[in-house]
């Protein structure tokens, strides 16, 4: 088990969110969509220009820009 930043995760890699390190509007938007510590996520893919990133969370698909995924810490196998 190790903690990495979501931005560095590879396609199909799964993990559990351990921390959201941003506040304000962005932090709020991220949390509102269910990305809170303890949530399981799985990277689904990236846009053709490698940004944004698409991930599976609670059964739906969410997209985030890389610079937004930078604030999310994920515990991976």
């Amino acid at each position: 088990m190790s903690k990495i930043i979501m931005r560095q995760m590879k396609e199909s890699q799964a993990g559990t969110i351990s921390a959201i390190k941003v506040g304000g509007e962005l932090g709020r938007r991220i949390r509102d969509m269910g990305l809170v510590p303890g949530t399981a996520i799985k990277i689904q893919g990236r846009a053709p220009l490698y940004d944004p990133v698409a991930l599976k969370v609670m059964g739906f698909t969410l997209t985030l820009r890389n610079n937004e995924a930078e604030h999310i810490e994920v515990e991976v196998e």
Partner: protein
Amino acid sequence: MEPTIALAGNPNSGKTTLFNALTGARQHVGNYPGVTVEKKEGSYRHKGKRINIVDLPGTYSLTAYSVEEIVARDFLITEKPEVVIDIVDSSNLERNLYLAIQFLEMGVPLVLSLNMIDVAKTRGIEIDTQKLSELLGVPAVSTVARTGQGKEELMGAALSKAKESETIAPLVISYGDDLDKALGEMEAKIKAQDFLTDLYPARWVALKYLENDSQILEKGRKLNPDLAAKLEVMVQKVSAHLHNTLATEPEALISDHRYGFINALLKQGVIHRQYDQNRLYTSDKIDTVLTHRFLGPLIMLSVVMGLYQFTFTYSEMPVGWLEGFFGWLGDLASTHLPDGLFKSLVVSGIIDGVGGVLGFVPIIMFMFFGISILEDSGYLARVAYMLDRVFRMFGLHGNSVMAFIVSGGIAGGCAVPGVMATRTLRSPRERLATLLTAPFMNCGAKLPVFALLIAAFFAEKEAVAMFVITLIAWGGSLLAAKLLRMTVIKGAATPFVMELPPYRFPTFKGLIIHTWERTWQYIKKAGTVILGIAIILWAMMTFPGLPDSKVKEFGEQRTAITMAAPEYVVQEMLSADENPEFSNAAQDLKERLQVINQAEAEAGLKYSLAGRIGIVLEGITQLAGFDWRTNIALVGGFAAKEIVVSTLGTAYSLGEVDPEESESLSDALANSPAWSPLVACSLIIFTIFYAPCFVAVVCIAREAGSWKWGAFSMAFNTLFAFVLAILVFQIGKAMGY
């Protein structure tokens, strides 16, 4: 009194589909006061009783960060609907309940609609509706909005909820020891002074203080600065404590606990899943192709091209019918009204003006139909996803591409539907930047101007010239957007955090309703203003009329020519209707009279207000190589860009030149000493970038929510265009062209 039921829910939860299923065509769209968020209202009959239904904007939460969320919660507070139906996507229950429990915390009378229960079933998700209803203490009905399943039962549940007279106790969730303690203390203070409690539950106000909610903080400071300051200090204290002990902040802790509450709730046997939650569904499999690194962009390109083709090719026929009808009406008025100002007003002002407004209607309808398909199917979100990286560099959003393409990103579009297409953008700053720069694209009305100038000066390189013009428009739009985002619309990029909804087949009913309501808004609102401006423009190019002495002079010239001709030739010419085959002499006479008529028209135009403006401006516009004739034409182009061609024709004494057949005019320009390829380049640049036609300006003002932005787009674009045109002309001149 008719009860009001508000529909709330996450975007993509099927809320609008349910609204359409309930109200059908009995709905109308307006705006919430002061903002550009659409307000949809309609009515529904349940057992003979009329119920008023309001479709609130789709939101994920109830913060003060977005206009939609503020609008939704303000509506609940000020209008106090009898019941709120929260439409929940059953296949995505956890996230959807996040909004539901926020409603319960506000103490609104809630009924849950567990929508898309069929999708949930195919995904192996089983929901115990009864259990969920018991645990949350609210009625819950499973529905399928697309087919209308559960609709009656849902409305029945809502109406019996509306009849309950007891006040609803807000839901209380535990937010952990630290926050609970702070909440308790704050709640006591709030209750003691009746601070905002006429509007909100006391605990909810305390929660919003902890969440740092800008709207509530502001209201509090105005109402009771003393208590507001005290509450803010309490929040600071607990924030500092949380920061030191848990390295977190109240806002984060609150959402963590809300999701914790939902998880605990669902674990009590509410939900049974057959498969792993994050397994891939059909929709994800489609995405592996549609958002594929190489295939994705290619498919997107063809979809966008397809939308464009659909909009402009299929609307051609109805546009033609409308043009034909207004042409016929104009002819009818021309033949039956006596010559004079009134006739000119009716034909050139009113009929042309109304025709101009309605001429856009088929294009707008087709565009919205196409975009609704992309939007309702879920593809539009993929477009934003794939293009975001590119458009973000310029301070825009991935979905900006639709507005750009429709406006003429593929030459020949139209800025009016283009500006209206920005409605699909939910990021306010990005949306504003898009709708201000999309009119730089080469709309169909600019093309005759380019065609004229290219034919006159660059005839041998037609295709290359058109391609370069398209590139210039794109480059200019994106750079202008960047410029705007760094100056007048400054501000960080709106967080992208976006859901890619599962692909769905759009319902035909939904598409038709979508298309019609947006088109009708255009006709209703824009129509009146546009007619007014059309008349003003007509007046500018008509008044003041030539002084009597001048009119007499032209009259005398005509008389002189007619007198000089033999009587039988004059007779032959006057009997034109019956005998279109003229003898040479009669033809000659007719042409000589025509020359005088056209000279009179030129003199009249020069004498009019528009002409005078053109002449006054010549001093400055010489810097870009434009003489007074070009200036008048450009003033006329504010009515519609293709008018530049016909006005130039009048200014060059060629009569009104048909924009589609401008050979005579392009010859005149090519031979005129005032023109050169360099002047043509400068004018092309100016035409691309200067003020949008006034129909587009009216739409910009409407979509941006303020006339300020309409005025801004006229001033900014004209200045931007003029600076570029001067650069082209002066640098070109210095280089010896």
